[in-house]
Each structure stands twice: as structure tokens, then as C-alpha cells.
């Protein structure tokens, strides 16, 4: 049974060691931390991290965030540190794992990547399997929207992007997540919305919930970020948070 879901963007800039001395989008980082704390407040037996990658796969639970592709020098130094061990994860999952660690979550976790080109039926099956789990299961979905919201965006400005992202936001806000299945795959590819299959997994795992609590919704660097959490009820120990 799915107790709650949190949504955070798989943005490498969440890793503070990549972005320099200035605080970069502190409100984004704060919202992500809050969303994950809400998720853990439900006391899940297991948290499943779902995120986009170049292939669909389950990953070793001891996997770690690997920033080699972004900062080779940083990775070189990490080799000397004892604390860094375990196989490399796709960055979306690695960032999710780090958010769990930073929230102090020490419980069981599972890591599932979804290829951006994955078939809808496979996304459906992955989500259904999550919903069928007997344990109290939390979902951390590492997903963002289009990457075409401004001329400096990774995919340049595309006038269709705002509507595409608004559809995602509306679905999460209303709690009617089946609307995410209506995301146009072809359009998603054109808008570099690589997480659209991860959104579909969420829709299949949690077709409906109470209204989504949106903590952040903006595209400050041309990529649409939505940070939110979803559940049917408030967590039992809500007052303690």
C-alpha cells in the first residue's frame, strides 16, 4: 500500500558541491528537503525511489550518487574518502538517495529507474507492482517537466512547454494523477521532458490521492521544477513535524 508520495526534480544542481560558493536556488533545495521529510513522516516500511535514466532497471540499494560526469576532479577526490562506497547510480536516483539520507531516513529503500523511452505498458506494470506491495510504501519520484521554458533553457524556448508543465501541475494539485497518462510522449521528447515515463509510473502506482501539497513550482533555469507531496491522509505523527 502506498502511504504517500513526494516529487522532487532530478536536477544535478541539488548537489551543493557542484554549484559553487553562492547559495543556488536555496528555496528549491529547502522545498525538496521538506517534501522528503513529509514523506518520511508517514513512517513507511520502505521508500521506493523512481527516476529517469537511460534504461529501466532496479539498482543496488547501496548505490550512491556519482557526480563524475559533472565534476571529474570532485570524483577523483571522493576516491580518497572512506565514506564513499557502493556502485554508481543514475544521477536521478543518486540525488533521491541523497535526499533520503539528508532527511535522516535510515529505513529500507528500493531504487527503480525508468527509461525515457519506456513503453506505457511497462510503466503501468511498474506502478501497479508498487501499489500491490504489502508493506507501507513511500514513493520518492524524481521527476521534472519540460526543459524548454526560456531561451536559455537546455532545449531553448518552446511555446508548448508551459501548457505541458501546467498539465503536470494541475494533475498533482488535484490529486487526480491519471491525468498524467495523457502526457503526449512525442511532445515530451521534443520538450526534453525525460521524466515523463516516471510520471506515468507515479500515475499507475497512485492513480488518485488527496490534493497535492505543492511546495515549489517554477522554471528558474528554463526547466520546470515541481516539488510536492501527496497522500490521502495526514501522517500519524504530523504534530511532531
Amino acid at each position: 500500500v502506498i502511504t504517500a508520495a513526494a516529487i522532487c526534480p532530478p536536477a544535478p544542481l541539488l548537489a551543493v558541491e557542484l554549484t559553487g560558493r553562492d547559495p543556488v536556488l536555496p528555496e528549491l533545495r529547502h522545498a525538496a528537503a521538506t517534501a522528503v521529510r513529509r514523506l518520511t513522516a508517514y513512517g513507511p516500511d520502505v521508500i521506493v525511489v523512481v527516476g529517469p535514466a537511460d534504461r529501466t532497471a532496479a539498482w543496488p540499494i547501496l548505490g550512491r550518487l556519482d557526480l563524475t560526469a559533472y565534476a571529474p576532479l570532485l570524483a577523483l577526490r571522493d576516491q580518497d574518502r572512506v565514506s564513499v562506497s557502493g556502485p554508481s547510480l543514475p544521477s536521478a536516483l543518486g540525488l533521491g538517495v541523497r535526499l533520503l539520507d539528508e532527511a535522516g531516513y535510515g529505513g529500507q529503500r528500493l531504487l527503480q529507474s525508468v527509461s525515457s523511452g519506456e513503453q506505457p505498458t511497462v510503466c503501468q506494470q511498474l506502478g501497479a507492482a508498487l501499489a500491490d506491495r504489502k508493506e507501507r510504501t513511500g514513493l520518492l519520484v524524481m521527476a521534472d517537466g519540460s526543459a524548454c521554458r526560456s531561451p536559455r533553457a537546455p532545449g531553448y524556448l518552446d511555446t508548448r512547454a508551459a501548457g505541458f508543465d501546467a498539465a503536470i501541475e494541475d494533475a498533482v494539485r488535484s490529486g487526480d494523477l491519471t491525468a498524467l497518462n495523457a502526457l503526449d510522449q512525442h511532445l515530451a521528447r521534443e520538450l526534453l521532458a525525460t521524466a515523463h515515463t516516471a510520471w506515468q509510473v507515479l500515475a499507475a502506482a497512485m492513480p488518485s490521492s488527496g490534493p497535492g501539497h505543492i511546495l515549489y513550482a517554477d522554471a528558474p533555469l528554463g526547466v520546470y521544477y515541481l516539488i510536492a507531496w501527496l497522500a490521502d491522509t495526514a501522517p500519524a505523527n504530523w504534530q511532531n513535524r
Partner: protein
Amino acid sequence: VIIGCVSQVNDRSAGVGRFGWLAAGADLINETCGGWDHRLAKAAEQGAGLVCSCAGGLAARTRPHRVASPDFPVLVSVSHKEFIGETLDAVRDQRLTGTVATTAVRAWLGALVFRAHQVIATREVLDMVAAIRGDQPSVRAVRALPNTRHQER
């Protein structure tokens, strides 16, 4: 590379006034005439850095970048120096490029303290070298970091 500012006093003669400067908070005594004064060494024992900068200062061909000490941090005082003028055939107010080039090479090779005239230019050169060496992160870096698409294999 350590980035920061210290105050410095030029003092060619180890007069009484020097100790006044030390009391006022000078961190370095820059002894550029090349002679060695035992009283200056005494001041160094009190905690002030002591600079003797005749070495390598005559010409680029004397390899100023080779000045190094395994035991003490090296201060570099190359700004506007004559050897830059000789190398580039540049009068004093045309030596900025030569100064920052020399500064960059010395910083790369591990010098820790730099005496500067153009403070902002020098500071930027040192920040850049520090970033390239991996000693210091950038101020702000978000390029290629908003999403994961282009980094996935």
C-alpha cells in the same frame, strides 16, 4: 592558494619605527633591498612574515618561479617589476598583463601570498588559478546542471 589580504610594511632600515608598525598590526615586513638585517629576523620571530625579494627579481631569465621553500609559505612580489618591463619592453603603467601572467604561474606553482597593485585583477587571477587547481569552488555554477538529460550515457 590562500586568498585574503594582509597588511605589509616596506622597510629598508631596521629602525625603531618598524616595531611601531608591527604593533599597529602589520603582518609582513617586505625587505626588498636584498640585505639581511638581524633585527628584521628578530621581528619575524615575533610573528611577522619576513620577505627578502632580491632573488630572481633581476630578469625573467633568472626564473623567479623557481623560488620556493619547503618550510615556509612563499610570498611573491612581482607586480610591475623591472623584469616584466624588460621582458615586454613595457613602461611601468603597461605591465598589468605581465604582472597577472607571472602571478598566475607563481600561484599555479604554489606561492601563497601575493603583493599586488591591481588588487581586483590579482584577486581574480588567483581565484581562477585556485579553481583550476581544484583548491576552491566557483562562485556560482549552474550550466549543464538544471536537468540530467545531457549527462546520461
